[in-house]
């Protein structure tokens, strides 16, 4: 059987996809460093997109995914699904409140630096795009098997969320550029 083709979410996805709030992944009792991720999605003219949709999937603070295929013996919190979805607000920002994920296993014996897996949808995107959010102040980035596939430093930098402290809150800022000089690295996987 052949895969069903993708089609765009169109301009009215909010009816079906964001009527429920889904952008808060962690509660006060979730273990780990509470963080906010926020940013905008930009088009080829450098304009922020008002009708983009971002979904995230991440491991918990110990580096374990809430999924039966993750058989690691690491602490597990069934209340932390690790999934979230955010449309863009009137200033074109998407936003997630979560905890920083732990490192997860990579190919072979490698360890992947903490990262959040991202899918980007928008009106005008016929097919979603996969990318990852890495943390700019994370030492494990040096040895991350995916980051090390990207030789060009400027391109690698498109995957780095910059840490900011805002009113006692740790915020990682991550913009997604669909085209242009600083086009975000998107993955085929």
């Amino acid at each position, binding site marked *: 059987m052949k895969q069903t083709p993708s089609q765009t979410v169109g301009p*009215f996805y909010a009816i079906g996809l964001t009527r429920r709030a889904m952008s808060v992944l962690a509660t006060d009792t979730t273990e780990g460093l509470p963080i906010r991720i926020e940013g905008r999605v930009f088009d080829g003219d450098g304009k922020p997109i008002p009708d983009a949709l971002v979904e995230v999937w991440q491991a918990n603070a110990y580096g374990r995914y809430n999924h039966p295929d993750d058989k690691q013996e690491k602490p597990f919190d069934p209340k932390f699904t690790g999934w979230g979805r955010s449309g863009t607000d009137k200033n074109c920002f998407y936003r997630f409140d979560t905890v920083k994920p732990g490192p997860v296993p990579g190919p072979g014996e490698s360890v992947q630096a903490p990262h959040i897996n991202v*899918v980007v949808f928008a009106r005008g995107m016929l097919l979603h795009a996969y990318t990852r959010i890495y943390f700019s102040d994370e030492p494990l980035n040096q040895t991350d098997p995916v980051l090390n596939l990207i030789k060009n430093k400027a391109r690698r930098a498109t995957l780095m969320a910059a840490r900011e402290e805002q009113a006692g809150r740790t915020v990682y800022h991550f913009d997604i550029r669909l085209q242009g000089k600083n086009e975000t690295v998107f993955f085929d996987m």
Partner: protein
Amino acid sequence: MQIPQYKARDWKSHPPYVFKGYGSSVKRGPHKKLVPIKQTLSEVTGPLFSEVKLEPGENDLTRNADTGKEAMGERIIVVGKVLDENEKPIPNTLIEIWQANAAGRYHHPVDQHNAPLDPNFIGAGRCVTNEKGEYRYLTIKPGAYPWLNHPNAWRPAHIHLSIFGPGFATRLVTQMYFPRDPLIPLDPILNSVPSKSGRERLISSYAHNVTEPEFALGYRFDIVLRGRKSTPFEERRR
């Protein structure tokens, strides 16, 4: 760590990121070559929504506007299976649905098409596949509507569907169309799909055995997600 891998995305089935006929894709589709990565736990795991409990009636878009009244239009029952490329049914997966009303207007502030809104129709619903991968929902046949892509542009009637499948790699958002719609050959969004068979797979079929007498017409639409590559580890714990 050995991880069972999913087959690659089928680039003859999926549209390119930039398709000139669809104006909005020109500035929004990535240009640079995608960076290929090996699938790890990050890609093969994904949200399963096992904690989500659907309310009764979420799969009845004709009556889920909380007005106690029924939406206007031609009732339809849509059924289908969610499978993977290996014909394995995908059970317990969440499907989210959204669409225009019978007059071709969305319940959304951005939609300013001069067609009536129906106070009894939101145009959103959800359902979950059963153990055999089957789903079913009741709705109103959506109307065609104009858009600004090109002169006298009209979208053929369609229903938007969002499906997760078992992993991050299986995520899919698509649109279901209706058989013999005269607007289909003119629609750049459907025609962005490179292969003819791919385009045909987005068109539902009329299903008389699903049609209920004196009530609603039936349509069938099967959805195929990426399947696992065959490996000795194919049997999965769920």
